């Protein structure tokens, strides 16, 4: 669905990406992780056609995003981190925009708004930031686009809304659609995102499914730290140890620990997953 080959991008003199390669397939919910400033939002903007690739290739469903073809935007939607809402009634916003998306389902929008407990008869300006974001997520999912890009979707949401968000994203995922979620709040979306993409200033450090990660790495709780491990972090009652999986036994992947392990063992992780 998304094919990135030798892509380079920079803001003036600040190089963000240099010759990165990435493939995103339909039927998956990708978690895009990375430290601040590594270019997660930039990557989403490149995929969404808001920025122009400096060199290399980025194609999405056969389209070059920056051409901004209407048929391309009929199949892609971006939920930005900071949504600055227009001064209008939510339901009017949805009905006016929904007309442009062939797959827009007004009933789905109403259902999602009800699930999120947001009243669509109010203007955006009368809603809290979290409610505005939920309204935007409801609209975006109701468009039924094939590619959904979400930049920090759980930011600003209260605890019940986060679990609702997990539920609606999970329901929105189909064999034909691809969802990319850029986030720092990995715990909010744990058990949902799979595969995991970890970005770094050096490019894509990891792009693997949870299944393959658990085949390659083991995440175990121990009473004491281990020097043989790739990563070890203290948790209440002991340590979470991440090490190479030398047995066929699979463990539950802790995404936060995976992220720290990858950042601290870039080459080891690359070698491990290239096998």
């Amino acid at each position: 669905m998304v094919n990135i080959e030798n892509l380079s991008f920079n803001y003036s003199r600040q190089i963000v990406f240099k010759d990165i390669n990435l493939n995103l397939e339909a039927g998956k919910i990708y978690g895009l992780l990375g430290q601040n400033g590594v270019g997660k939002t930039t990557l989403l903007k490149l995929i969404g056609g808001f920025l122009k690739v400096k060199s290399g290739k980025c194609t999405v469903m056969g389209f070059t995003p920056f051409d901004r073809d209407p048929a391309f935007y009929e199949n892609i939607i971006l939920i930005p981190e900071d949504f600055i809402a227009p001064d209008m009634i939510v339901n009017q916003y949805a009905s006016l925009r929904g007309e442009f998306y062939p797959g827009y389902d007004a009933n789905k929008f109403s259902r999602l708004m009800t699930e999120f407990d947001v009243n669509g008869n109010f203007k955006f300006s009368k809603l809290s930031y979290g409610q505005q974001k939920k309204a935007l997520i409801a609209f975006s999912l109701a468009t039924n686009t094939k590619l959904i890009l979400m930049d920090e979707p759980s930011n600003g949401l209260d605890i019940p809304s986060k679990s609702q968000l997990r539920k609606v994203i999970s329901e929105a995922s189909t064999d034909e659609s691809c969802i990319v979620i850029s986030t720092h709040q990995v715990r909010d979306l744990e058990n949902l995102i799979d595969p995991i993409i970890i970005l770094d200033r050096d490019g894509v450090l990891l792009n693997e499914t949870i299944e393959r990660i658990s085949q390659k790495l083991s995440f175990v709780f121990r009473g004491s730290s281990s020097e043989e491990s790739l990563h070890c972090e203290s948790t209440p009652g002991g340590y979470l140890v991440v090490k190479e999986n030398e047995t066929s036994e699979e463990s539950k992947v802790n995404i936060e620990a995976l992220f720290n392990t990858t950042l601290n063992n870039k080459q080891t992780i690359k070698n491990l997953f290239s096998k």
Partner: protein
Amino acid sequence: MKIHFNINRFGKLLSKELRERTPFIVKMVGIMSLILVGIWLTSMFFVRGSAVPMEARTTYLYIAVLITALSAPFSMYKNYNHPKKGIDYVTLPASIEEKFLSMLLISTVILPAIAFISIAFTDTFISIISPSMFSGLMITEPDFYTKMNGSVSDLIIIPLLCLLGNLLFRGNKIVKTVLSIIATYIIFIMIIAFIFLYVYKDQIETLQNFELQIRVDNLYDLFRSEYFAPYPGLKISVGILALLYNFGFPIGALTAAYYRMKKLQY
């Protein structure tokens, strides 16, 4: 294959844009019409009931329509190139051509036309209920059409330059646009001055007895006038300047605005 223009989609887009902007349009046009009502009431109650001259009414209509056209892009499309707010509009599944045409139509044609009709209607209404204050109908005044016709270039060129400025600048849009327009006009006037005062100095001195008025908006009239007929070089130069002002400026502004819109990054 990219479809640049689809009439159904454009219709949907135009309808959406107008519906979204109806509150602003009503407010803007309402204010402009109410100012005319204010002029009428002020004359009636505070200026000892003296009638409002036709000249003042037509001038007000012209200024009100011009202000409406100039402010339209900044008021209705100020967020288009905003790094965050602009994304919402860019992702809308319509082509750049459709979005550009819709922006152009609403800013420079539909809103000024609605303002024109509303003010003209208000003027007519006041003329009917208070003929002593608003004597005669503005829309039947021949002078009114002469004024509007003579100002068409201003009503087209300057709003298009504002449309471009709105897309070009991200911060302090109005100030930067006004300064850029002033700079453009100064440069253009300097070119005219150079041509008239240095290149064709002798011919212009000969023509001084005819009390010619040389302005940027009457270059085409000068080109057509018989005064320049004996001087083909001067006539061609004036013709080129008239062409540049009347066609080069608007076409240049339109082209630049379109490409700016197409290449905008967020």
